[in-house]
């Protein structure tokens, strides 16, 4: 496999905050690469460096084998960026937004017109082509942002929370489009909080926390390694808690204490929980998900 994006010891410092801390990554051509992490983990800072809008404090980036620092313009020409914040041009109509963006990429007018029609149709925005941006719903804006990010037929698409605020119908429309890009061999980088989205769409997922990558693999492999196939949830009362924890510890089981619940991982069967089952405790077994991995690696506390 060829690394289409490669970073080496990439860091970004803002005054006293180290937003990205020596990240070395290789993103392969044609894959869908997920970037997961809580707010403030450094995902957006990392993305901004890779898209050449923010210079690294330290480290290097290569895109398609070329140093990004020396070939920023050429690289930006083959990238499509869908930002997290809506930065559509409110002074222009829907169609003008796309046409104006096409012009930034120096796409000939005739080609641009065709692409705009295709993209508006694809994202179900044909009826809105002459509307002002303020007349669009949140979901329509997001779809327009995605259309805009695809206007230059990019070889690398970077999406920062592309489906946030979308209803399920619109979300599936976007997922469908992302899967189509897969068939065209387009590399996709997806920043998301939506674990379902990451598990469904991504070939590989990196879990980022406090500027560093804590885990990187396919969603299934991450789940298998950090949590196992299934999770047992034990609901515990405050007075019962210590006893349960002590028991789990004595058996050297892999568990996590989340206050009202204790989660037990890497268990083969219920029998391993022995006498904990019963005694009126509520024990539930469910398939492990990427969300469990996420919590295990980044903690349950809200840190901002």
């Amino acid at each position, binding site marked *: 496999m060829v690394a289409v994006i490669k970073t080496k010891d990439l860091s970004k410092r803002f005054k006293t905050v180290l937003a990205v801390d020596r990240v070395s990554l290789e993103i392969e051509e044609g894959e869908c690469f997920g970037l997961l992490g809580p707010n403030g983990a450094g995902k957006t800072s990392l993305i901004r460096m890779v898209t050449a809008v923010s210079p690294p404090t330290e480290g290097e980036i290569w895109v398609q084998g070329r140093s990004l620092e020396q070939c920023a313009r050429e690289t930006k020409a083959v990238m499509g960026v869908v930002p997290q914040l809506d930065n559509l041009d409110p002074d222009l109509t829907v169609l003008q937004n796309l046409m104006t*963006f096409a*012009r930034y990429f120096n796409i000939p007018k005739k080609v641009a017109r065709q692409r705009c029609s295709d993209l508006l149709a694809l994202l179900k925005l044909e009826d809105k082509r002459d509307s002002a941006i303020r007349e669009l719903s949140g979901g329509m804006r997001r779809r327009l942002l995605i259309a805009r990010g695809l206007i230059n037929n990019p070889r690398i698409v970077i999406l920062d929370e592309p489906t946030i605020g979308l209803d399920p119908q619109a979300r599936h429309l976007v997922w469908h489009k992302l899967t189509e890009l897969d068939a065209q061999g387009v590399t996709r980088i997806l920043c998301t909080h939506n674990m379902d989205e990451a598990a469904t769409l991504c070939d590989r997922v990196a879990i980022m926390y406090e500027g560093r990558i804590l885990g990187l693999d396919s969603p299934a492999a991450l789940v298998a390694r950090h949590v196992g196939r299934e999770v047992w949830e034990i609901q515990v009362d405050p007075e019962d808690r210590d006893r349960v924890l002590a028991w789990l510890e004595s058996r050297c089981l892999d568990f996590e204490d989340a206050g009202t619940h204790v989660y037990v991982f890497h268990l083969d069967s219920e029998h391993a929980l022995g006498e904990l089952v019963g005694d009126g405790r509520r024990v539930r077994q469910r398939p492990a998900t990427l969300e469990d991995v996420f919590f295990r690696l980044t903690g349950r506390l809200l840190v901002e």
Partner: protein
Amino acid sequence: MKLFSWRCIRMWQRNKDVFVRLWHSEAPGAIAEPILILVAMGLGLGAYVGLVDGQPYIEFIAPGIIASYAMFSASFECTYGTFFRMEYQKTFDAIIATPLSVEDVIAGEVFWGATRSMLTGTVILAIAAAFQLVHSPWAALIPLVCFLQGVVFASIGVFYTSLVPAVYTFNYYFTLFITPMFFFSGVFFPLSSFPQIVQTLSWIIPLTPVVHLTRSLVSGNVHLGLLWVFGLVLLFAAAFFLLSLVTMRRRLVV
């Protein structure tokens, strides 16, 4: 320091498209005001003032009105306008993710501001001509002078915008910089009315050479010495343009 490329035309085109779409919401007011000033001051006050430097008062102030409203156009476009695009609409953020660089965006802003100056100046010139206040074919060069002064004031505006924390900070810019220039650069009375020290100082504010140049072109009083004045405007343009590229990169690229 990085320079801009031909791609700045894309930013200019974007602003032009927006202007074409929304001009009726702004431009008529921007043209009506100078006409009102010209008539009110020129005819009203002019009746008391009589001749200034051997000219009727309205004829004396017409070139100054052209120059100062050209200044206002670029100044509004490249302070409030630039700030709204940059901070509230995040337009620049979207554009620098495309092959345009920060310098292309800023150069496009400045050249668009200069274009607004040229449009405003040309319209007022045409109206002044209709009032028979223009006596020399040299006046045909005024749109070019307006463009050049537009580069000066657009650049200063962008430079200031690159430093401001909030939109309210522009009040200072207009009350402490633009408005004083309007009064101390020889628009409404000859600089010779001031004490020597003020006369000398007024040449370091950029509107003074522009008013001088415009007045000379309107009256046909053209001589080689004007090249110095032109050179001074050119110097202001180059200095502030380059400065605005540097400070805007510092603000936008973090």
